[in-house]
């Protein structure tokens, strides 16, 4: 079930229409510029009028996003964007609600709001800019910083194990879970487009470079020389193949993924795991999400999972309709002077 596209053929938007025109204040070279550009480029194709879209954020570098979009914008409290978005969507289900957030905002201080938004499958879209660092407060470690990372608040290296955002979102019940890269504009545009069409909670983790406090965190995935051997593009119904010469694959050996050499004479493309993004069982999503934790495995990008489940907002409004049809429209008099009240004489 993908959202119906509203006919906006009379209105021809361009990317420029979605720019608020105010000065963008991110550091030079920040990955956020690319994310903003890809959102503005894809927005005309959402099939929504500008006044039907709202961007909501919390605190962090990512949270400047609403200022730069020529749509409705709400800049809320640190970590609470998912809760604010839930209120907006429930109050006005006709709005397309987007959240711009970061690894600190949504996986640390806002972790609870994030998992419960996923659990409810409320129809909002969450873009999580993951730079694995606290940028706005100038360089402390974040809940996605790799173990052992030296930062201003971990001068001897972190002892925390990082969160894996794909696992968190999947485990919490998000119905669209994807990953993309700030330096891969085409892929990012495709993911944003697909999220815009999904009905239910859509989550995209975007690996984003912070050139000031965590430069090069994802360079192995974005630089020409290393990209092909380290990135696995997930495509529905296609075998998992990667490598500069498309000569490596992933085979599923029971519940153990293994990297296979397609040129070793023992394996062929037929041995490769075929990606099924509609798989109702999340087990295989967790196996894919784990690739980033295993040495010599490629980092999967693309849609990990997309499936249909009733959304909180549509079910809730359906419930209101049912209650009214069974009990009739409530009036103030009926509620105040009905069965539950009596007169004191």
């Amino acid at each position, binding site marked *: 079930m993908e959202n119906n596209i509203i006919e906006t053929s009379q209105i021809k938007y361009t990317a420029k229409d979605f720019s608020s025109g105010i000065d963008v204040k991110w550091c030079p070279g920040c990955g956020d510029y690319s994310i903003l550009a890809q959102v503005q480029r894809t927005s005309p194709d959402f099939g929504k009028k500008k006044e039907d879209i709202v961007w909501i954020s919390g*605190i962090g570098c990512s949270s400047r996003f609403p200022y730069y979009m020529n749509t409705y914008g709400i*800049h809320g*409290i*640190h*970590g609470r964007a998912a809760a604010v978005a839930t209120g907006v969507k429930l109050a006005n289900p006709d709005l397309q609600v987007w959240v711009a957030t970061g690894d600190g905002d949504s996986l*640390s*201080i*806002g*972790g609870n709001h994030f998992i419960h938004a996923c659990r409810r499958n409320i129809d909002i879209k969450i873009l999580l800019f993951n730079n694995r660092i*606290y940028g*706005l*407060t*100038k360089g*402390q*470690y974040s*809940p996605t910083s790799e173990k052992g990372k030296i930062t*201003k*608040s*971990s*001068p*001897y290296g972190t002892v*925390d194990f990082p969160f894996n955002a794909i696992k968190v979102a999947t485990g919490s019940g998000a119905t669209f879970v994807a990953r993309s890269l700030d330096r891969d504009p085409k892929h990012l545009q495709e993911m944003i487009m697909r999220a815009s069409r999904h009905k239910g909670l859509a989550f995209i983790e975007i690996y984003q470079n912070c050139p000031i406090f965590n430069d090069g965190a994802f360079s192995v995935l974005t630089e020409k020389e290393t990209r092909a051997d380290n990135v696995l593009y997930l495509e529905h119904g296609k075998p998992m193949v990667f490598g500069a010469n498309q000569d490596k694959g992933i085979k599923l050996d029971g519940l153990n993924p293994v990297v296979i050499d397609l040129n070793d004479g023992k394996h062929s493309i037929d041995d490769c795991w075929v990606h099924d993004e509609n798989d109702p069982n999340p087990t295989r999503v967790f196996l894919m999400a784990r690739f980033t934790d295993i040495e010599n495995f490629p980092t999967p990008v693309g849609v990990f999972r997309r499936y249909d489940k009733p959304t909180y907002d549509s079910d809730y409004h359906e419930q209101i309709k049912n209650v009214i049809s069974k009990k009739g429209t409530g009036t103030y008099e009926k509620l105040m002077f009905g069965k539950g009240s009596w007169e004191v004489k």
Partner: protein
Amino acid sequence: MLRLFMKGNEAAVYGAILGGCRAYYGYPITPASEIAETAAKYFPQVGGTFLQAESEVAAINMVYGAASTGQRVMTASSGPGLSLKQEGISYSAGSELPLVVVDVMRGGPGLGNIAPEQGDYNQIVKGGGHGNYRVIVLAPNCVQEMCDLTKAAFELADKYRNPVIVLTDGFVGQMMEPVVLPEPITEFQEKPWVVDGTVKTVNNLISSIELEPEDLERHNIKLQKKYKTISENEVRYEELYTEDAEVILMGYGIVSRVLQSVVDEARSEGLPVGLLRPVTLFPFPTNKIQELSRTAKLFFVSEMSNGQMFDDVRLALEGKSPAKFFGHMGGVVPTTEEILEQLKMIFNELKE
């Protein structure tokens, strides 16, 4: 004497370590982050712990846990973070847990900005959380005091089994000044109430609940008595040329530094002004204000807020002396010139 050149935020960590604090739980926020960063660097070196919590709420609850074991523990933040910590501070006051929180104030309300302001006075000095409680509030105005008062905060917290908040502003937190390190605290009083895994303390319970109204009232009365004792014994202030002053200037934190210059300038122009700077905001120097009101003609209060401490000055004066307020908000700092101009007008009015 060896002097170290450092930021106010760094000095707070030195003061904490010298005050026997060995645990820090916090969350990054500008303009307080250097406190966490400095703690991350130095606490492990003295056998202490540092943990960057997942949120401000988590941090204050970790502090609650560590304080329950008897460890000297702290956290630090700025206004938005303190708003989040209020629940934990109320619970700590109810459970009578000694702990220290440093608040490096920034502009508000809401996200506001990261410029220095003093708009947290009400949420810190008046409680902020729910219930009939008070916290001891210390207000440093220089980097040396960031060190000394943070150290003192741990002694006061243990002495009264009460949260202590070091309330300062982004200016004092961020500016650099030389500091003479005080002697470390080496003797600690016993804490028979702690949960520390010994046979002696096995029946201890740390809690803020009292289900019976009469019991809870008794607990509250006990707390009020404690606050009264604190008010009688722990008031600290600094005064400058107050003996013959016709106008008493009042301000705390960075504003008091501006007021020091104002007093010098005004005196050189023949205006008899003095300065009363509260170092403790709770307890408030009410008696001192009343004493000065017998000789001074007017109180002039300046703050980087909408006049939150001004309310307490007026309460202390009980209407017996006139009081005027001059302040800025949003991160704008009152200047010596502006205040002098105000004072000249006041003296002209006083002559008439």
